[in-house]
């Protein structure tokens, strides 16, 4: 490795870092015998940056040269920044060198658009192919699918990558048109459709022939930038719901807008990225995916934006006091999941444990229930304590308002989301 690689790594990691998706989970790829690596199904973080985010993958761009000029992007062609391009060899050596030392789970490769989308996609596929076939590398690979690339290239990518992502970035079409005039939602949705269809087709194929090669086994994801436009949380979450159910996406990532191109007047002048809002969106996303909530229960036309002061699950409980208190010894799983202060794991424990004995506060505490929150919303085998109905929602809200801003925040990924409620 020569000195040049250091500079390239600096430049191309720097431009890639704003892409938040760090997940390397969702695949189980076993070592083929004499090759290197496997992909653990749960994904492993190998380090944490100063901002607390998980480092799981070597996340770099193949090149940060770009023919497009998206307003929200550091790599846009009108920016005067250092540019570089990796050679296939350099990338392969870096990936394998890092992987063998247990620094990373694998490679996350994106790219600026060079020449045209199809050519760019071909270059990305080339790297993945080299790793898989020449170096028998079985670790994780996440490739960015470039909007506008041909179906053929997208399909090739799916044969070598564990996950593909096409970033929506801007939630609504008019705003996208304003900030990224060369892009439109159609060119983003279309590769998603191809990947989605490929995944379904592959599942069917592998049912018949277990040896058929896997196609994008960890599914696809996308990213939305938050706070660069005036889109409401409702329009963002409705879009997410559509992507999860309509396009079968595995993850939607929300990335608080960082004021990068400050001179561009199409973008809002903000000093700090909207981290709190980003966090609330992740919580809402989790309610939708793991807590059996519908998006209408989280945001609606009457309250299109999430409450920044309280988490969306508590918000729901305060808006619907008549559902409480919930009897933890009798209520079904769905209702128990709706109790603020009860997570998925504690809810499962409650369901199991109450078949052995009637549960009281002490038991719940041992099972990881945050009683400080939950006690206003439950009844159990114990003397009644004042609940939301006696105290009134607005007072419960006051009591539960997060007092110190010093609390651990979730950055980007939902790594510690489960323990948040």
């Amino acid at each position: 490795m020569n000195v040049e690689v250091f500079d390239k790594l600096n430049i191309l990691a720097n431009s890639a870092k704003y892409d938040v998706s760090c997940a390397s989970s969702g695949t189980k790829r076993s070592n083929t015998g004499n090759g290197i690596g496997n992909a653990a199904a749960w994904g492993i973080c190998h380090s944490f940056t100063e901002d607390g985010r998980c480092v799981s993958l070597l996340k770099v761009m193949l090149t940060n040269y770009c023919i497009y000029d998206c307003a929200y992007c550091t790599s846009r062609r009108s920016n005067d920044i250092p540019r570089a391009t990796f050679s296939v060899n350099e990338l392969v050596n870096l990936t394998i060198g890092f992987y063998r030392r247990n620094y990373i789970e694998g490679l996350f490769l994106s790219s600026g658009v060079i020449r045209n989308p199809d050519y760019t996609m071909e270059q990305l596929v080339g790297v993945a192919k080299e790793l898989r076939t020449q170096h028998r590398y079985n670790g994780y690979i996440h490739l960015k699918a470039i909007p506008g690339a041909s179906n053929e290239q997208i399909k090739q990518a799916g044969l070598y990558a564990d996950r593909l992502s096409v970033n929506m970035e801007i939630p609504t079409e008019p705003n996208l048109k304003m900030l990224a005039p060369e892009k439109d939602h159609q060119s983003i949705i279309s590769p998603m459709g191809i990947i989605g269809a490929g995944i379904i087709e592959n599942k069917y194929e592998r049912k018949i022939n277990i040896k058929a090669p896997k196609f994008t086994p960890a599914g696809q994801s996308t990213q939305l930038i938050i706070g660069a436009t005036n889109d409401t949380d409702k329009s963002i979450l409705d879009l997410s719901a559509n992507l999860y159910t309509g396009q079968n996406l595995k993850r939607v990532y929300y990335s608080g807008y960082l004021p990068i191109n400050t001179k561009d007047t199409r973008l809002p002048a903000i000093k700090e990225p909207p981290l709190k809002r980003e966090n609330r969106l992740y919580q809402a996303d989790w309610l939708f995916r793991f807590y059996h909530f519908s998006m209408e229960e989280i945001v609606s036309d009457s309250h299109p934006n999430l409450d920044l002061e309280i988490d969306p699950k508590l918000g729901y409980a305060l808006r619907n006091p008549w559902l409480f208190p919930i009897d933890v010894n009798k209520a079904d799983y769905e209702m128990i999941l709706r109790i603020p202060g009860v997570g998925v794991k504690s809810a499962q424990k409650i369901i199991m444990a109450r078949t052995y004995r009637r549960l009281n506060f002490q038991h719940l505490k041992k099972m990881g229930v945050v009683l400080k929150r939950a006690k206003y919303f439950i009844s159990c085998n114990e003397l009644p304590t004042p609940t939301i109905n006696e105290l009134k929602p607005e007072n419960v809200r006051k009591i539960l308002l997060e007092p110190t801003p010093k609390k651990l925040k979730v950055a980007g990924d939902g790594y510690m989301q489960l323990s948040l409620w």
Partner: protein
Amino acid sequence: MEIYIYDKTFEGFLSVVFYAFETKTTPFKIMQRGINQSMLFSKEIQIVTELEKSERVWNGLLKKINKKNADMIYRVFLSELPDVELLLLNYIQLVFSYKRSVFGDFGNPIVAEVHDIHKRVSREAEHTLMFVRFKKTADNIYFAPFEPKYNVLPISIKHFKDRFADQKWVIYDTIREYGYYYNLFDVQEIRFVDSNISRSGDIDKSILNTEELVFQDLWKNYFKSVSIKERSNKRLQMHNMPKRFWKHLTEMQ
């Protein structure tokens, strides 16, 4: 008051369980042989490790609880926490006294405690997969010293064997002073003769592979460049990556 003395192996512990069931006694304490801690007014009973007996206990367990739950007992044993043997003996007594599996009885304090320790041990085993850092030596062995809070290497190495099947490696627990060596065929337990390396895990730069320092620098370089300074949150970093691991983390040097 009886104290059982055993050899600190898991088989030894299962022999203890066998003895307790056979004699229908529960000791006041279960202790490791050789630890000088004589107790007043107590009677020491030496338990000999017998594989046949330990196997009988294990098979008996598998009749009452599933494999995963039985493995949980082993993993909790690896915590090496004070009096964990007594807790596990109590747990196993529960296992045999219940009509169905004790697994879900989170309302029972013994079951809850076992689950709680299991969670902590599993977390530490995960930390191994996350924070082990290999250094490549001149003779092409990838070496990683590690300091886990609990004795988790036995349950972590399978992951490394699967993942790094085509490279020789050593993962070494410098607290308990033993480790595992994978020679491309199988994994062997090893101990360094050099007590300095055994305790510190430090190896001389001169025996590193020529490309090793380059990769370390590249990695540090990468790590620095991916932090977003507008989002600095060192508390979260420390929460996710406890300080006690930093000593061997290349990127934190």
